[in-house]
């Protein structure tokens, strides 16, 4: 099945999310979030959520589809709900109490709370307080010492993993007394008061962690690093060393995002502009296939041959006329290419870094990129 492509302008999309019924798509765009109706073939802009003063870093839709969560470099997070009387989305401010940018936000699977990561070395666990009618937060602080880049919830909505720029992936308990029911013991531990550190893993090189993900059962944790490697951890209960820690090195450009398809299959993507599937178990993981066929950038790139004798290539008078006309109209020029314009494009759908991957259906993932595209791939 060929991928479904939505070209939504040309500004970078940091994160995208589909509503649970797959009819609405939300994307971050500069200081706003845009909502699209994607139930028909052409995406229709429903509305633009304007409420942040600085770049919106992350967007998420609650599991029941009723609330939209956004966070931004302006240190705020907003919860948007549709107001049928006024027929528009209304924001509620979250009491975050952080002094630096909010970098990432994620609803818990049960939809009763959410987590916000920030460069203030804090993860804020937020929940609704009916008495005062606002969202308040509790902070996970220790032993965080660097910017949080990514968050992922365990399916039990109590455990939370976070990746940070010091190369650590950590698993915390985000148990809120009075809100959560006591969780069943898991492979990560059984006694879980708030802020319990259930796991702390560092990658081999100490490179930034770009994304973390729990497996569907929650019994494994995977993360992608800026050194182009993937780490996978299988825990072994409270206060025990993990059963197995794997580090899969690759020779690609770094990955920005990771998603589990099943317990034994993950999809990663990033600066390579392509999706790559890995398969494995506790014993070992290895690369399975690339989702799109791709020309190797270091070997057979047609541009290399072109640029060597760029100045010697003669262009026809017709091309020259077009060139100057473009220069006049747009103030910039694309040099006419004797082999046609397509030779200058990448061989993948995404023409720039894939910033975010999400599970779309059991065998489909959706991706967004800094080229302004959202794409649904079958894998």
């Amino acid at each position, binding site marked *: 099945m060929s991928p479904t492509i939505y070209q939504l302008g040309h500004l970078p999309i940091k994160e995208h999310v589909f509503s649970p019924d797959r009819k609405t798509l939300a994307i971050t765009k500069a200081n706003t979030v845009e909502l699209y109706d994607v139930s028909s073939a052409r995406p229709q802009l429903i509305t633009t959520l304007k409420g942040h003063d600085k770049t919106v870093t992350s967007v998420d839709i609650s599991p029941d589809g009723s609330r939209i969560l956004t966070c931004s470099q302006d240190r705020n997070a907003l919860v948007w709900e549709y107001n049928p009387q006024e027929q528009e989305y209304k924001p509620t401010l979250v009491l975050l109490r952080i002094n630096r940018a909010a970098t990432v936000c994620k609803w818990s699977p049960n939809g009763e709370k959410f987590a916000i990561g920030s460069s203030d070395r804090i993860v804020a666990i937020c929940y609704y307080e009916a008495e005062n009618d606002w969202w308040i937060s509790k902070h996970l602080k220790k032993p965080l010492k660097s910017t949080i880049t990514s968050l992922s919830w365990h399916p039990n909505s109590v455990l939370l993993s976070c990746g940070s720029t010091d*190369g650590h992936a950590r698993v915390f308990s985000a148990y809120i007394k009075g809100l959560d029911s006591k969780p069943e013991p898991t492979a990560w531990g059984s006694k879980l008061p708030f802020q319990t550190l259930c796991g702390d893993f560092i990658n081999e*090189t100490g*490179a930034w962690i770009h994304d973390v993900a729990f497996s569907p059962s929650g019994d494994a944790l995977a993360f992608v690093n800026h*050194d182009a490697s993937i780490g996978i951890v299988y825990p072994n209960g409270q206060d025990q060393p993990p059963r197995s820690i794997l580090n899969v*090195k690759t*020779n*690609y450009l*770094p990955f920005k995002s990771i998603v589990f398809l099943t317990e034994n299959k993950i999809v990663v993507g990033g600066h390579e502009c392509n999706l790559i599937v890995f398969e494995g178990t506790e014993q070992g993981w290895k690369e399975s296939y690339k989702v799109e066929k791709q020309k190797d950038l*270091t070997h057979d790139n047609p541009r290399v041959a072109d640029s060597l004798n760029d100045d010697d290539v003669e262009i026809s008078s017709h091309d020259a006329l077009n060139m100057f006309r473009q220069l006049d109209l747009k103030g910039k020029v694309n040099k006419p290419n004797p082999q046609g314009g397509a030779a200058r494009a990448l061989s993948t759908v995404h023409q720039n870094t894939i910033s975010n991957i999400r599970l779309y259906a059991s065998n489909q993932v959706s991706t967004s990129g800094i080229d302004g595209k959202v794409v649904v791939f079958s894998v």
Partner: protein
Amino acid sequence: MSDWRSIDIYALEPENFLTKQDLIPDLPPVSHDVIVGISQQCRQALSSGQFIVALTTALDTPPYVADEATKSLHAETVFEVLCSIRNNHSVNDLSKFVTQLDSTQQDTLVKYLYKSMGTGYGTKQGGLLLSWFEKTVEITGLGPIVRYMTDRRTV
């Protein structure tokens, strides 16, 4: 307040920020004497014509946690091995050496190639270093370059 950019914000929260100490890799320190010993081992292997042994010995023992003098000494050892291999083989034979290395050794090789390029002796042998670099990346792809840039275990 006009000079807000120069406020030492870490002084306001002295507890929880990363120090240089926190970023030193958690590995045992390597002493200068050990590296001198390895340098001699490599020379012996080279003089008896065991080029691949000399190369793997040098690449298996990078002093990640050591003082500058020790790190420079090991870089010179690796450079000597690379020169010796190149002087006794054709350019195309370099690929055979690279394929015999495992992925960790290949990563370390690229780290030392970059380090050598920044030294005085490396600049004089730029062609040699570039041919090693070309042959290595042909086989490994971009991974080792990415890891050279991100790895906190510097050589």
